[in-house]
């Protein structure tokens, strides 16, 4: 019986992230539009876009290989699995033994690897530009992310996300400067990885600035829908990663009743709304930076992660 309830809770979690992801993106877009005093599309617009794309015919280039066709599914699957591993409303779910932070980083990395390959597959110049820029950003964001992981792992004594979240929710953790640095660094990495505004603008198709959009320019129909949904999921994943590590309040523990799961889910939605609002606020307040400034931005994240890790050795020195 326990196994069945575990499967149900894990399934609910997987469906929840899948259903909430477009809503979060739509919500961020709506808030951004409202902040610049525009009406903005409905928060449900991403769902409509996805449905429209799913109904449309796929147009493939003549020289597109099998890689081009399978990449959307591989990318989407990898990101969905990674999103299913992050504890959103409850810790200790069925897949938790695999919910290792390094595994999540690796899943996201392989998703991006395939997307970059597909960007170059058709052989258009935009795809090449997009892939090379994306790989440049990834090559800098990944070490920063790994340093954040090390910092968290040193604090909590584990890279298991569930354990980390559990530990940080307890009262053992005081005021730690390392955790603050890790939070800021994780925020910067999340912005870079999700192609949000200071690094890349998701709403533009201007060839000088686009990174992510340039890679997926050749996709259409259900392939594009898969990639878009993957991008929505990735944003949700990073937000829930930040929420479960740094704001683990009211997250339900393993084996607690349905009531606490409900409270956890409600708290999770509140956290998402808050994070989405802050993201929109940040994005309207900053301007897009030049592509050549991105290494400096991510270098700062790397530095914060490294410094946080170093400072931990001092605070544990007694």
């Amino acid at each position, binding site marked *: 019986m326990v196994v069945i309830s575990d499967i149900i809770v894990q399934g609910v979690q997987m469906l929840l992230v899948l259903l909430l992801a477009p809503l979060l993106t739509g919500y961020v877009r709506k808030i951004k539009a409202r902040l610049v005093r525009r009406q903005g599309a409905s928060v449900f617009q991403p769902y409509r876009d996805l449905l429209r794309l799913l109904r449309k015919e796929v147009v493939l280039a003549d020289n597109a290989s099998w890689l081009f066709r399978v990449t959307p599914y591989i990318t989407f699957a990898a990101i969905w699995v990674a999103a299913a591993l992050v504890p959103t409303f409850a810790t200790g779910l069925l897949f938790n033994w695999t919910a290792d932070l390094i595994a999540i980083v690796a899943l996201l990395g392989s998703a991006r690897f395939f997307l970059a390959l597909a960007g170059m597959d058709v052989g258009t110049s935009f795809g090449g530009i997009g892939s090379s820029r994306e790989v440049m950003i990834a090559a800098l964001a990944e070490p920063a992310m790994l340093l954040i992981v090390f910092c968290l792992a040193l604090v909590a004594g584990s890279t298991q996300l569930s354990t980390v979240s559990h530990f940080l929710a307890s009262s053992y953790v005081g*005021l*730690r400067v390392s955790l603050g640095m890790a939070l800021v660094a994780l925020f910067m990495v999340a912005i870079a990885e999700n192609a949000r505004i200071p690094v890349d603008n998701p709403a533009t198709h201007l060839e000088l600035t686009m990174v992510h959009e340039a890679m997926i320019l050749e996709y259409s129909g259900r392939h594009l829908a898969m990639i878009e949904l993957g991008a929505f999921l990735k944003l949700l994943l990073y937000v829930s990663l930040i929420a479960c590590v740094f704001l683990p309040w009211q997250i339900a523990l393993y084996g607690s009743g349905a009531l606490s799961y409900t409270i956890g889910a409600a708290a999770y939605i509140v956290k998402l709304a808050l994070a989405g609002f802050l993201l929109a606020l940040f994005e309207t307040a900053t301007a897009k930076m030049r592509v050549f400034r991105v290494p400096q931005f991510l270098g700062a994240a790397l*530095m*914060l992660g490294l*410094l946080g890790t*170093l*400072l931990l050795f*001092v*605070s544990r*020195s007694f």
Partner: protein
Amino acid sequence: MHSLAFDISHTLAGGLVLISLMMLYQDRLYSLLNVFALHALVLSLSVAWQAFIQDAPHLYVTAVIALVFKAIVIPVALHRIVKQLGIHRDIESAVGIGPTMLAGMGLVALSLVLMLRVTSDADPLAREDLAFALSVVLLGLLVMVTRRNAVSQVVGFMSLENGLVLAATGAKGMPLVVEISVAFSILIAFIVIGIFLFRIRERFDSVDVSALDDFRGERR
């Protein structure tokens, strides 16, 4: 012993190291001066917190000195100097930002490793303060080494001195006279440096210290 007092002083001292690294990152003079003012502000907060937890009222005087002179008087004066010299748009560093940041991280790691080994039987609070203070001093030196503009070298020197004050407040029993005399000697040094800046400027039409190399015939 994971008390809140320790955590707060840890946060403040760690913040000081972080701001030192931010100083390495700046490439505009005005923003460098603003970061320096922030550095001094965090220093005075840290000293005041040490005064509170060590129950040492004379440290409050040090905190006030740091706040008034280092966070207000010197940055404002440097702002005026920069404005008068007309060099506020100068972007100058001898080494690129990336290698500088890496060197800075290396110095922080070095000072932590060194201090934690050397002071293994000291009070944890003093130990941690000393480790951070050494890294602030080394980062100040690094700012002085990697900058070509004399004004930013002055800022590096001042931030180095901030590290000394942090070390002094972490170690218990530093007399007030010493602190005040150190603070005033820094102020005097600042005045002398200010005069020198104008002299260098008068002579070479720039505050880039590589002009001095030219003058001595040491140009590569």
